């Protein structure tokens, strides 16, 4: 679960990492009053779960509450990479002497948390990694032994931080970032930029904070930060039904069980000359209700012209899926033709159930490839 900048900064603050004072606003008027209460110069920052908001004009400096209101009016409603801005963060403006980069990531390959630190912050860190890799200090932490003071020293000296005041502050931030990472079950904590103000104070000016969904039960406060509005309506609906759904641009609606098989189905549709309309994983829910739920998620998409059920029974039983399809057809109006391919546990029984019922507009295919070709054909390609 990705957090907004302001939410990540709230967690930073709780763990003692210095951030600027700020307030959230959802209307221009709130932005004005926030700026008013903060006093002095403020920055109006679009809150979106995507990068690139600076270039898109989603971050603006305001000299006065009036100007903050004005900027907020421009930024609220703005579309940044497909994300509509619904909230802005009004924050005290900072003077920036230096911009560093500090992150702590879950390194899946090494199976250890990984710190990355460079004095070349504020820019695209992938470019730093690519062009001047020697400028990027990296360091793994053993999760059992935990963070030791030397980790911070190694990062600081490798990155060439020589000013004792900075060394001390950044070492403390490294320690607190690790504590936050572990305490909050984070997958990523990124500070870009980590700034040094002219008078030497070090502060997190931005925040990227991702928390492990599987661990949210331990963090009800973080779980409450989830903003359902940040996701497209149909994905939200799917989430409520326990179905994994991602909208795509094509015409063939796809339902399958298991992410790998569904991805493979998408690929096979493409190979057959079609375009998948969605990614939809039934998960373990191959029973009648699960099938109905999934169909309710994908059929409202006006682009869908045919539907492909690709199910390989394991725990999921094909006879249940077949029954689920029939139930769904009984309960709802489905205009599009449906192609069904069943294999694995109780596939014969499942096919028999469908053959016995023989609903109109339902086509049973023997193999994944033939099913894909048929679905593409029925979509009108």
């Amino acid at each position: 679960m990705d957090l907004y900048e302001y939410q990540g900064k709230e967690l930073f603050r709780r763990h003692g990492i210095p951030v600027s004072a700020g307030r959230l606003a959802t209307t221009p008027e709130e932005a004005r009053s926030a700026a008013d209460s903060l006093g002095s110069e403020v920055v109006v920052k679009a809150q979106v779960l995507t990068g690139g908001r600076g270039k898109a004009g989603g971050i603006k400096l305001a000299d006065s509450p009036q100007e903050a209101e004005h900027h907020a009016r421009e930024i609220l409603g703005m579309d940044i990479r497909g994300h509509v801005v619904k909230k802005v963060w009004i924050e005290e403006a900072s003077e920036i002497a230096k911009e560093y980069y500090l992150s702590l990531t879950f390194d899946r390959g090494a199976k250890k948390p990984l710190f990355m630190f460079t004095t070349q912050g504020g820019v695209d860190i992938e470019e730093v990694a690519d062009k001047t890799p020697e400028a990027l200090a990296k360091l793994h932490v053993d999760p059992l032994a935990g963070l030791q003071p030397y980790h911070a020293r190694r990062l600081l000296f490798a990155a060439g931080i020589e000013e004792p005041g900075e060394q001390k502050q950044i070492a403390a931030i490294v320690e607190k970032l690790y504590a936050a990472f572990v305490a909050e079950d984070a997958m990523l904590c990124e500070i870009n930029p980590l700034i040094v103000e002219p008078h030497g104070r070090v502060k997190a000016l931005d925040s990227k904070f991702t928390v492990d969904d599987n661990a949210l039960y331990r963090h009800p406060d973080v779980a409450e930060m989830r903003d359902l509005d940040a996701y497209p309506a149909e994905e939200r609906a799917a989430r409520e039904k326990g179905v994994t759904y991602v909208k795509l641009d094509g015409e063939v609606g796809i339902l399958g069980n298991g992410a790998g098989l569904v991805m493979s189905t998408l690929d096979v549709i493409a190979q057959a000359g079609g375009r998948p309309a969605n990614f939809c994983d039934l998960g373990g829910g191959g029973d009648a209700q699960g099938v109905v739920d999934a169909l309710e998620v994908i059929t409202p998409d006006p682009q869908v012209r045919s539907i492909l059920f690709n199910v390989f029974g394991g725990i999921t039983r094909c006879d249940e899926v077949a029954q689920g399809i029939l139930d769904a057809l009984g309960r709802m109006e489905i205009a599009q033709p449906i192609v069904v391919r069943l294999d694995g546990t109780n596939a014969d029984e499942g096919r028999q159930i469908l053959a016995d019922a023989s609903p109109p507009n339902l086509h049973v295919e023997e193999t994944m490839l033939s099913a894909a070709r048929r679905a593409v054909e029925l979509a009108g390609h």
Partner: protein
Amino acid sequence: MAIVVDRDTRLVVQGITGREGSFHATRNKAYGTQVVAGVTPGKGGLDVEGIPVFDTVTGAVAETDANTAMVFVPARFAADAIYEAVDAGIRTVITITEGIPAHDMLRVYNYVRPRGITLVGPNCPGALSPGKANVGIIPAEIFAEGRVGLVSRSGTLTYQIGHELTRLGIGQSTIVGIGGDPVVGSSFIDILEKFEADPETELVVMVGEIGGDEEEKAAVFIAERMSKPVVAYIAGFTAPPGKTMGHAGAIISGSAGTAQAKKEALEARGVRVGTNPTEVAQLVADAVGARA
């Protein structure tokens, strides 16, 4: 022989009195796996379809010489179950449970792996050595005894490929689902290494997906350390980009993580990559035929 599980496997099922635990323990036993014990704290002394239940894994090991554990306990208790199994002397732990917090597994992994333990999963379908033992939820009837090893990040996709192989008359030595969680107990390389050492395996099918760089690392391993042929499949050419791990993720792996990048990395090292499950099976048939 075979790998991970075989005729010498003596299985203890942790969480055996749960709905799924009892169902699959019974099913694994029916397949012929030596399911010697179950563990549910407080239910010691009971039995599940003739499988004796113990309060602790230590108790189960003492009484039954169990050497392999299958973990079916709920996610929030799963890490504890794995520690318990390892400290009780279990040498292979297969964790089916999904939804285990990544930080829990991070600590488990770093504790368990240096001890030489084979850890498979979590969030995986388990391991099946056809004709020998089935530990997990893989539907054994799809597979057949033979000499092709199969390792996969995905569940149903594995079944699909196994199904296609079996249909062509190609049996399998062992099928291992490694799972797709952020921390997996065994990576592709860990399992490839075991297949390379297994005299009953003559070719390996590796089934990967978009994301991460484990397939790229496996490509290097295959080129440098494997004598046996490997056929690969990568799912997700058409997949939506999905969530990224921020910028840091790509820097760590130095890989785009796309299916195309993985395919190219594998092909650059001489691994044949099928474009769909049917073609993968055909490539295996050609290779096995060529070797026969």
